[in-house]
C-alpha cells in the first residue's frame, strides 16, 4: 500500500532566496516612493483650512496674498508671445481671436486655445501647472478654490477700462467683490427648449412647464442636461422648492424621487448636445441652456424653418440664471497680454462678434432684448432666450456646495445615471 501523497513541505529559504525576497520587499516600497515622488513632482498647490463659499447673501472679498500682486500699470505687452486660452470647445469665436492677433500684430502675438470637457477636469490640469495657460474661462462656483489655491492672478483694473460696458451687477459681483479676480464672459438661463412640430403641448402655457419633461407622451423625445447640479436643481424647481443648493435631506429625497419618476415616465436622454439633437429632430423637448437654443438655429437641417423652435424660461426671472467668467491664471507667462485680451473681449464690438459665434450672450449694457432680436442675433420666436439683467436680481444661482453636501448631491446623480 502506497503512502498517501502529501503536499511537499516548503524548504526553509536559502541565503540566496532570502536575499532575492529581501530585494523584492525593498523594491515594493521603493516603487511606491517613486510613484509618490512622480505625483509630487507633477506639482499641485494644496489648500489648508475650510473654503470660503460665496453666495448672493454672503458676498466675498477675496484676499490678495503676498507674492501674488497684480501687475504694474502701463507695462508693454510681451513680444513674440503665445497667449494660451483654456476654454470649453467652440466657446470662443475664431474671428475674435484673429482680430486680437491683428490688433497686436506689432508684438507678434499668437493665441492658442486648449479645451476641456468640464471645469473639474480643467482645474485638475491647471493645478498640475503642466501647461502655463494665461486665461481660463470658469464658472463662478470655482472661484473659491481658484483663489484659495492661488491659481489666479489679481487683476490690474487700469488695463480693463471696458468693464463699464458690462452690467452693473458684474462690476461688483457677490462672488468676487470689487472684481479682484474675475470679469464676466457670458450670461445664460436654463429653461426648456422644444420643437412645435414634435411637441403639440404649448409648454409655456402649462401651469408648471417643468411637468412637460416628465410627460410620458414624449418618452424617447426628451432630454435633460448632463450636469448634475443643473438637472437636479430643476427637480427642486418643479417641486416648488427654490433653494437649489439645499442641504436638507428631505429636499434631497425629493430630488431622488423626481429623478426616479423622470426615468419611469419620459426616460430622458442625458446629454449636453441638445443644441444639435433638438434641431436635428432627435429630440422633441429638452432642458436647455439659453445659449444652446440660440445656437440651435444654425444646426437646423435645410428646409426646416427656425420658427418651429421655442424656449421657455420663467418670464418673471424665477429660474436658473448663470454666468461664466474670464480669469487670468497665475502660472501664465503673458500677464500683460492676458489683461489686454480680457479688455478686448469686454469691448462691445468684439463681445458681439463672439456672441454671434457661440450663441451665449455677453452681459453688455448695449444689448437689450429688442436690439438683440432686431439685429438678428436671436430670431423672434426665441426672444425668450435673451437674458435680461433683472433676472440676476431674482433668479436662482447654482452655488458651490460644502464638501459633504456636494458628495450627497453627487451620490443621487450617480444613482440616476446608473439607471438603477
Amino acid at each position, binding site marked *: 500500500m502506497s503512502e498517501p501523497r502529501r503536499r511537499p513541505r516548503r524548504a526553509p529559504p536559502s541565503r540566496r532566496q532570502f536575499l532575492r525576497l529581501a530585494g523584492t520587499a525593498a523594491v515594493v516600497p521603493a516603487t511606491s516612493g517613486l510613484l509618490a515622488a512622480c505625483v509630487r513632482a507633477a506639482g499641485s498647490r494644496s489648500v489648508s483650512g475650510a473654503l470660503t463659499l460665496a453666495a448672493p447673501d454672503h458676498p466675498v472679498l477675496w484676499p490678495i496674498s503676498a507674492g501674488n500682486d497684480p501687475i504694474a500699470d502701463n507695462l508693454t505687452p510681451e513680444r513674440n508671445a503665445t497667449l494660451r486660452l483654456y476654454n470649453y470647445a467652440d466657446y470662443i469665436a475664431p474671428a475674435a481671436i484673429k482680430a486680437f492677433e491683428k490688433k497686436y500684430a506689432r508684438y507678434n502675438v499668437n493665441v492658442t486655445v486648449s479645451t476641456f470637457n468640464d471645469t473639474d477636469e480643467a482645474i485638475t490640469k491647471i493645478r498640475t501647472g503642466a501647461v502655463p495657460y494665461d486665461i481660463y474661462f470658469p464658472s463662478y462656483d470655482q472661484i473659491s*478654490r481658484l483663489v484659495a489655491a492661488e491659481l489666479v492672478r489679481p487683476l490690474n483694473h487700469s488695463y480693463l477700462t471696458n468693464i463699464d460696458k458690462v452690467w452693473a451687477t458684474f462690476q461688483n459681483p457677490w462672488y468676487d467683490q470689487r472684481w479682484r479676480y474675475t470679469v464676466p464672459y457670458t450670461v445664460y438661463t436654463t429653461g426648456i427648449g422644444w420643437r412645435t412640430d414634435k411637441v403639440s403641448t404649448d409648454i409655456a402655457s402649462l401651469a408648471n412647464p417643468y411637468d412637460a419633461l416628465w410627460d410620458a407622451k414624449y418618452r424617447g423625445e426628451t432630454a435633460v442636461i448632463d450636469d448634475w447640479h443643473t438637472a437636479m436643481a430643476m427637480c427642486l424647481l418643479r417641486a416648488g422648492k427654490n433653494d437649489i443648493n439645499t442641504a436638507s435631506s428631505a429636499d434631497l429625497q425629493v430630488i431622488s424621487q423626481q429623478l426616479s419618476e423622470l426615468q419611469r415616465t419620459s426616460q430622458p*436622454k442625458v446629454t449636453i448636445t441638445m443644441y444639435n439633437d433638438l434641431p436635428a429632430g432627435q429630440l422633441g423637448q429638452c432642458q436647455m441652456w439659453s445659449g444652446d437654443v440660440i445656437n440651435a438655429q444654425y444646426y437646423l437641417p435645410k428646409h426646416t424653418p427656425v420658427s418651429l423652435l421655442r424656449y421657455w424660461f420663467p418670464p418673471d426671472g424665477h429660474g436658473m440664471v448663470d454666468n461664466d467668467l474670464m480669469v487670468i491664471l497665475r502660472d501664465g507667462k503673458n500677464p500683460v497680454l492676458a489683461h489686454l485680451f480680457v479688455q478686448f473681449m469686454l469691448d462691445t464690438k468684439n463681445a458681439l462678434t463672439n456672441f454671434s459665434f457661440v450663441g451665449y450672450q455677453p452681459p453688455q449694457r448695449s444689448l437689450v432684448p429688442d436690439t438683440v432680436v432686431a439685429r438678428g442675433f436671436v430670431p423672434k420666436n426665441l426672444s425668450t432666450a435673451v437674458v435680461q439683467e433683472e433676472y440676476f436680481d431674482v433668479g436662482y444661482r447654482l452655488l458651490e456646495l460644502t464638501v459633504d453636501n456636494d458628495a450627497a448631491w453627487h451620490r443621487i446623480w*450617480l444613482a440616476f445615471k446608473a439607471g438603477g
Partner: protein
Amino acid sequence: MAAAFTVTLRWFRKRFSLWSILSLPGIAWLVLFFLAPLYVVLAIVFGAVDPTFRTPTPIWNPAHWRAGQFTYVIDRIFGSDAVFGPALLRTAIYVLAASVVCVTVAFPVAYYVARLSGRRKGLILALLIAPFWISYMMRMLAWVNLLADDGLVNKLLSFGGLFNVHEQWLSGKSIVVILGLVYGYVPYMILPLYAGLDRLPQSVLEAARDLGANRARAFVRVVLPMCRPTIVAGVLLTCLPMLGDYYTNDLLSGSPSTAMVGNLIDQTVLTPGETGYAGAFVMIVLVVSLIPMLYYVRSVAKSELTAT
C-alpha cells in the same frame, strides 16, 4: 576592460538563457504599463480624497490603505441600496447577448472564408478588415444618422412611405445598444475564428466523412470541438472590450436606462470625490474578466493535452 566584459557576458550567459533575456522587454512592458498602472488604481481606490478639490489622493503604502470607497461601491451593488446592481447586471446581459450574436454571425462568415471561398479568400479577408480602417466612433456616429427618426432605417422600414414608421431607435433601447456592440466588435470575432478554421486539417474532416459521418455530424463532432479554443479566444477578444465599453451606449442611447459599467466608470472618473469609485468599478471588471480568461487558459491547456 575587454576581459571584464567577456567575463560578465559569460556569467550572464551562464545564469540566463537567451529566451529569458529576450523576454525582458515584454516583462518590462508588463511592469510599466500594466502592473504599475494597476498599482496606481489600487492606491486611488484605497486612497483618500483631497478635502478641498475632492481629487483623489493616492495612498502608496498598502499598510495605510482605506477600504471606504471600495466598500461603498460593493454595498451599492449587493446591499439593500443596490443602485449600481442593475447597471452591472445589464452589462452582463448585454455582453452575453452581443457575444452570442457575434459568434452566430462570425462563425459562418469565418467558415466560408477559411474553407469555401477559394481564390477570393484574400479579397474577402480585406473586406472583413476594412471596418478597422475607420474609427469605432465614426462608425457609431454613422449609425446615429441611419437610426435617426428620419434616417435611412425608418425610411426603409416604411417602404417608401407605404407604412407610417416613426420608430425612435435612439431613445434608450437595449436592443440597439446590443446590436451596436455586435456591429462594433464582430470583426474581432471573425479574424480569430478564421485563423482557427483555416488551420483545421482537411484530413480529419475527410476521415470523419469516410467513417460515415454526414456533413452536419462531422461539423458537430469534429469541427466544433476542434474550434473550441478558437471560439473562446474570439469571445474573449470581443467581450473584454465590451465590458468596458461606454461610448456605444452614449452614442446610440444616452439614456441611463441602458447604462453599462463602462458608463459608470466614465461618469465617476472625473467627478470630484468619485474617482475612487471609478477605480473600484475597474477592479470589479478586471476580476470578472479573469473568469473567461482562466477558462480560456484551461481550455487551451486541455486541447494541447488532447493533441499530445
